[in-house]
């Protein structure tokens, strides 16, 4: 394979075109486009994969070397091409995911990683043999220096899947692409094919850029058939695709829906559709997966200004949070609408704040001296908590003696917070006595006026408290967190 053959191919583009038209399916397009696309404008990684794919394409076992470009020269070899095509079709049908991500000049850097991440398992059905890949590599060499450069620089994607990806992405689905392929400007053809393919791919967002739109404008009529088929496949692949870089789950349905919509749009000519599609492509121009941005695809019939896209994202975020709040605020399930919901939330927050105020008033009156005894309150409170959480079980009078695990843990936590290790002897008889001792310790250390007020408490003093007293180190009652 050398460049001469490529030239021949170009000359014989008419046959190719005819073939493509008759085939009326993507594969031939690929093949045609496969020869050209490699160009300097594409990242080396892409080219590597593409070259591999192309090798695959061109070297059909039935066709041997003739396929190269020779097969397509001046009437080529219909039988071989058909068999070749059959192979391709089969491979295609396996549902290659959307590679389309061959980005135009702009987003070169990330293509390769994306492509490899997209490969769905189904791709493996492609006639994968090492020889295939080699042929693809060789093919790339044929098409020009650029391929070889890429081959040298990058590790070849040694999987047919990538080839398939490239093929898929390349599928131009219109004569324009074919013609473009015939032309020597491989890059242009690639771009066009990619552009056309982009709309179908719902998954990768960074690729879209402007390619899809332009491509569509170029060859709408004939491409429609191709596009729909391809998009169908792409959509299936898209769903199987796990490499969805979008960070919002809602994007997936958006993308898929967008892909579907686009397909439908193609089939049913809609003046708005094409514009929207192209606009969508441009709308996603700014997205860049490596930056960690959130990729959004404009929905059909929506403005595609980047501002409006961001606005939409923001609105969706807000509505998502509103839904979350709705679950939180009791009695808001029936309410719909942002304004009413917001009112409900505000009312709820206000009521909660009022409750706090009311309860603090009550506390102030209940305990006029404000001598809040930490331990005592903890005991009572813990008990109350327990009672509040579980069904009412009558507590025995000496409640502290019957500490359920919760308060016990609570006390322990309290104590540990205070910088004290809870010693095991504490365990069951955590009682007021002990606490009293601790309180004394605190007072001693912090001059904290904690009145040991067991007025309402039923805790009998415990002699064991004395034992613990000695072990109490100076307390460190933390009041700051």
């Amino acid at each position, binding site marked *: 394979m050398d460049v001469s053959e490529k030239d021949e191919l170009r000359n014989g583009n008419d046959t190719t075109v005819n073939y493509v038209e008759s085939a009326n399916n993507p594969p031939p397009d690929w093949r045609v486009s496969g020869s050209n696309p490699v160009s300097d404008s594409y990242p080396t990684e892409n080219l590597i994969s593409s070259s591999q794919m192309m090798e695959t394409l061109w070297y059909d076992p039935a066709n041997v070397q003739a396929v190269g470009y020779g097969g397509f020269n001046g009437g080529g070899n219909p039988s071989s091409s058909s068999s070749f095509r059959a192979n391709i079709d089969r491979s295609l049908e396996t549902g290659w995911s959307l590679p389309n991500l061959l980005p135009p000049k702009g987003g070169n850097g990330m293509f390769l990683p994306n492509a490899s991440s997209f490969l769905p398992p189904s791709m493996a059905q492609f006639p994968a043999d090492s020889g295939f890949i080699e042929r693809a590599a060789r093919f790339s060499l044929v098409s020009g220096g650029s391929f070889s450069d890429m081959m040298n620089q990058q590790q070849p994607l040694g999987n047919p899947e990538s080839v398939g990806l490239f093929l898929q992405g390349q599928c131009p689905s219109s004569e324009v692409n074919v013609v473009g392929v015939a032309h020597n400007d491989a890059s242009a053809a690639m771009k066009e094919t990619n552009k056309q393919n982009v709309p179908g791919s719902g998954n990768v967002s960074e690729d879209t850029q402007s390619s899809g739109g332009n491509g569509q404008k170029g060859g709408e009529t004939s491409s429609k058939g191709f596009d729909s088929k391809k998009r169908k496949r792409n959509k299936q692949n898209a769903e199987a695709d796990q490499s969805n870089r979008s960070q919002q789950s809602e994007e997936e349905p958006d993308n898929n829906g967008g892909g579907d919509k686009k397909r439908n749009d193609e089939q049913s000519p809609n003046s708005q559709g094409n514009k929207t599609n192209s606009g969508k492509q441009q709308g996603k121009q700014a997205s860049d997966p490596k930056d960690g941005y959130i990729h959004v695809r404009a929905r059909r019939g929506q403005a595609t200004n980047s501002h409006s896209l961001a606005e939409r994202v923001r609105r969706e975020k807000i509505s998502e949070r509103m839904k979350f709040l709705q679950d*939180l605020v009791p009695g808001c399930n029936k309410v719909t609408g942002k304004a009413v919901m917001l009112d409900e939330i505000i009312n709820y927050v206000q009521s909660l704040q009022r409750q706090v105020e009311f309860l603090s008033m009550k506390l102030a009156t209940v305990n006029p001296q404000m001598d809040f005894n930490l331990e005592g309150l*903890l005991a009572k409170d813990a008990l109350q908590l327990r009672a509040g959480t579980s069904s009412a079980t009558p507590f025995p009078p000496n409640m502290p003696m019957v500490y359920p695990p919760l308060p016990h843990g609570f006390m322990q936590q309290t104590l540990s917070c205070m910088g004290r290790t809870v010693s095991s002897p504490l365990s069951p008889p955590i009682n007021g006595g002990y606490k009293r001792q601790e309180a004394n310790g605190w007072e001693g250390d912090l001059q*904290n006026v904690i009145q040991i007020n067991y007025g309402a408490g039923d805790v009998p003093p415990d002699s064991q408290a004395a034992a613990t007293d000695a072990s109490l180190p100076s307390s460190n009652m933390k009041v700051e967190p």
Partner: protein
Amino acid sequence: MGSGNNPIYTGVPEKDVFALHFLQTLSNLRTQIPFSSPDKTKDRVKKIKKAAYVSMARAAGGTNRLWSRSLLHQAAKRNNKNVRLSRRRKRVTWPRRNRRDPVEEPAAERLRNLVPGGGAMETSKLMEETAHYIKCLSMQVKVMQCLVDGLSPK
């Protein structure tokens, strides 16, 4: 109340934590005022209320949450004796070049006034903070209710 399978994280500690903090703050209150406590009910109420909010803010995550942070800062400003921040931060919220300005949302104005620190938040962030704030508020209310029930003469 767990955060669930929610991308919005609004986990709230158990009641115990709230109770602990509240009681700590209350007992701290006692130390601040002389023994001959000024017995104006209003003052007491105010103090307790403030203690409640501060303790709630602490229990809810200290300075990790925007609303709690701003709440603590407000409290610290007013009364430096009661509330101490471990590390005084320069500002509670980042300067207003937040993205809130370009996007106006008149509907959330009232919410901003209610939630501490809401004035400098984006609307979506405001929603998140509100959710967490509601959870903590309800928790605090429960704790206080328990306390009142426990302390009230039987």
